[in-house]
């Protein structure tokens, strides 16, 4: 994969339901799964597939991204060979219209594309929960001499796709159409990961500059007959986190051992920034079942079917079910939580009860004290 540069996009603002989590960070650094940030999956998948030149486009809320990625050492990316570049994105969003692959972001970063000797670019969004080895898809990309190879997945109602998700249409093995769900559905949806020849990407960039249309997928749609666009299938687990409901459902998926196994116990692991905490202490009378727990916690209460991030303290007599508790929360005595998502540094005092709904959990913003 020496001939492929990776590019991870910045995809904020798709849905308002996550806005409470995104005031200080971008979607790419949303905490997930007890110790990860969303971007860890896409970035680790790229690294584990052998990419060693990766650009990550950040938003204007870049502090958490910069802090999380550092120089990429935890992902085995080297500072010496400039394996990881954190790129400044564009702030020019079109109000009321979502651009999935905004070429303005790439426009700002032509330098990154110019500098890489790679002939192909692998572009992906940072909010995909999956483990995927890109090497097979790349072989397909090369074998077909594709301009663009879109990675797709067979549809299933469990994916809860949204109106602006894209479906692929095939004709004679080639991709012949791209349709929004609201327009037309087929059996296969686009995973928001694709290979593109660098030369084609540069051409489309130039075209965008002339036409003022900055949506790469639009450009592909317009030129679907002249471009060689192929598909490569994804057969494993994949979920896209783009709203609170999806975030909750995808998180709870991890509590199914088979999904947990596929994501975390395979040959390739998902890397993340290392936080150094003491092991979690379960003190009597703690009772914990079917949960994921980070390190550095001190737990004295009961936890069922929940995800607890690092450094959480939970006192005697409290019960947590079906909830997500991010790092450094402090939960008092005799607290009851059901369907609650707590952002980090949140504190709940004794005898508090919060009960949300499966489809609409209660959200506590970072630093809330109740």
């Amino acid at each position: 994969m020496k001939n492929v540069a990776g590019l991870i996009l910045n995809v904020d603002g798709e849905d308002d339901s996550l806005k409470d989590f995104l005031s200080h960070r971008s979607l790419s650094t949303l905490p997930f799964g007890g110790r990860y940030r969303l971007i860890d999956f896409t970035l680790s998948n790229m690294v584990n597939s052998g990419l060693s030149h990766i650009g990550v486009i950040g938003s204007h809320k870049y502090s958490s991204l910069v802090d999380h990625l550092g120089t990429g050492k935890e992902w085995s990316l080297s500072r010496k060979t400039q394996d990881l570049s954190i790129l400044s994105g564009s702030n020019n969003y079109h109000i009321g219209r979502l651009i999935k692959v905004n070429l303005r972001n790439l426009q700002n970063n032509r330098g990154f594309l110019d500098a890489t000797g790679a002939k192909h670019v692998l572009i992906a969004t940072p909010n995909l929960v999956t483990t995927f080895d890109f090497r097979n898809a790349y072989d397909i990309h090369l074998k077909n001499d594709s301009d663009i190879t879109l990675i797709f997945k067979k549809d299933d109602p469990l994916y809860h796709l949204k109106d602006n998700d894209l479906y692929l249409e095939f004709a004679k093995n080639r991709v012949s159409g791209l349709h929004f769900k609201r327009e037309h559905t087929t059996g296969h949806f686009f995973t928001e990961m694709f290979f593109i020849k660098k030369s084609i990407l540069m051409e489309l960039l130039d075209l965008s500059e002339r036409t003022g249309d900055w949506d790469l997928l639009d450009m592909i749609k317009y030129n679907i007959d002249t471009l060689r666009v192929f598909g490569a299938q994804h057969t494993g687990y994949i979920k896209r986190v783009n709203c609170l409901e999806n975030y909750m459902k995808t998180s709870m998926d991890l509590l199914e051992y088979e999904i947990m196994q596929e994501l975390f116990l395979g040959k390739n692991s998902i890397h993340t920034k290392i936080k150094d905490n003491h092991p979690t202490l379960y003190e009597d009378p703690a009772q914990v079942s079917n949960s994921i727990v980070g390190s550095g916690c001190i737990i004295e209460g009961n936890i069922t079917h929940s995800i607890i991030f690092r450094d959480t303290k939970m006192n005697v007599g409290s019960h947590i079910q079906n909830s997500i508790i991010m790092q450094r929360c402090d939960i008092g005595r005799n607290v009851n939580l059901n369907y609650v998502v707590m952002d980090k540094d949140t504190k709940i005092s004794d005898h508090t009860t919060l009960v949300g709904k499966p489809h609409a959990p209660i959200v506590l913003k970072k630093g809330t004290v109740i």
Partner: protein
Amino acid sequence: MNTECVAMLLAGGQGSRLGSLTFNNAKPAVLFGGKYRIIDFPLSNCMNSDIDVVGVLTQYRPYILNNYIGDGSAWALDQVQGGVHILPPYMGQKGGRWYSGTADAIYQNLDFIHRFDPEYVLILSGDHIYKMDYSKMLAFHKQKEADLTIAVMDVPWEDAHRFGIVNTDEDHCIKEFQEKPERPKSNKASMGIYIFTWKELKKALLDDAGNRESEHDFGHNVIPMLHESGKRIFAYPYSGYWRDVGTVQSYYDANMDLLDCDCDFDLSDRNFRIFSNNTSRHPQFIGPQAKISNSLICDGCIIFGKVENSILSHDVVIHKKTSLKNVIVHTGAIIEDGAILENCIVGARARIKGDARYISDPTEPAPEIHVINN
């Protein structure tokens, strides 16, 4: 970078009394408290004491230890030009020698210390569990204008005969040494932590190296020699948690202290953190039927069974219908369906079959600790 005081950490020992725990691994690299290795404690102490240069002297099976120490960044000891330096025995023009005693190990690395030309040298060993701010000991050393300061702590009188005992005057000046005395005159025991004024250390080591009758040991040879020659030797009084983990029993007991709320050794104290060198692992997964009580559990564990009063290191898998009580499990071990373990230490990557039964006789006051390896 602070080079006023350079630390030299003696990490060469085999730790043969730890049995199979040190079969493939030097004692300072033995796991402790789940995720830590013994050497984390002196290295974290250095970090918390603003000591920026640490030489680590190794010679027994150092691969895991060297790999673990890496570039020192895990303890923030990776300053440009400073940080941790691993110092194995080496060959010179006239051939090479293994380190033959604590003082000899430092003597062979005088060149290293000389590069930093510090004013003081702190000598540590890699086999004790404790937290200590060495900068306070250094301030004491400077205040006393000492040539050598030895950290001491009060031990129970009945144990004093197992230690090097010092007798001091009211100013903490050491007047007498007793090495493992039958009749101790005090209960102040040396903790094996020394601060030397560099020029005195250099002189002492050169003198000691020239003495053919010396075993080149600080406790037996160098310090008595300095005492005889009238150097200013002081005892720095330390109080707090300190454990030697040189035997299986003491290693097991010190681990179990971490599960005791009343114990004053707190790993969760943010003001004096013990760091370790970890790679990223998934968080612990606790299955639907798991039961966990009073235990310390690390990242990467997968638990479907019953875990009571136990310490699980990274990546341990506990299958269903198992029961662990008073057990220490090292990294990557797998406990299969149905196994019952009590009072055990399970070695790294061991696989315990489902028919395993290690059950202690409850009538016995101090059950034997089984060390299980594959």
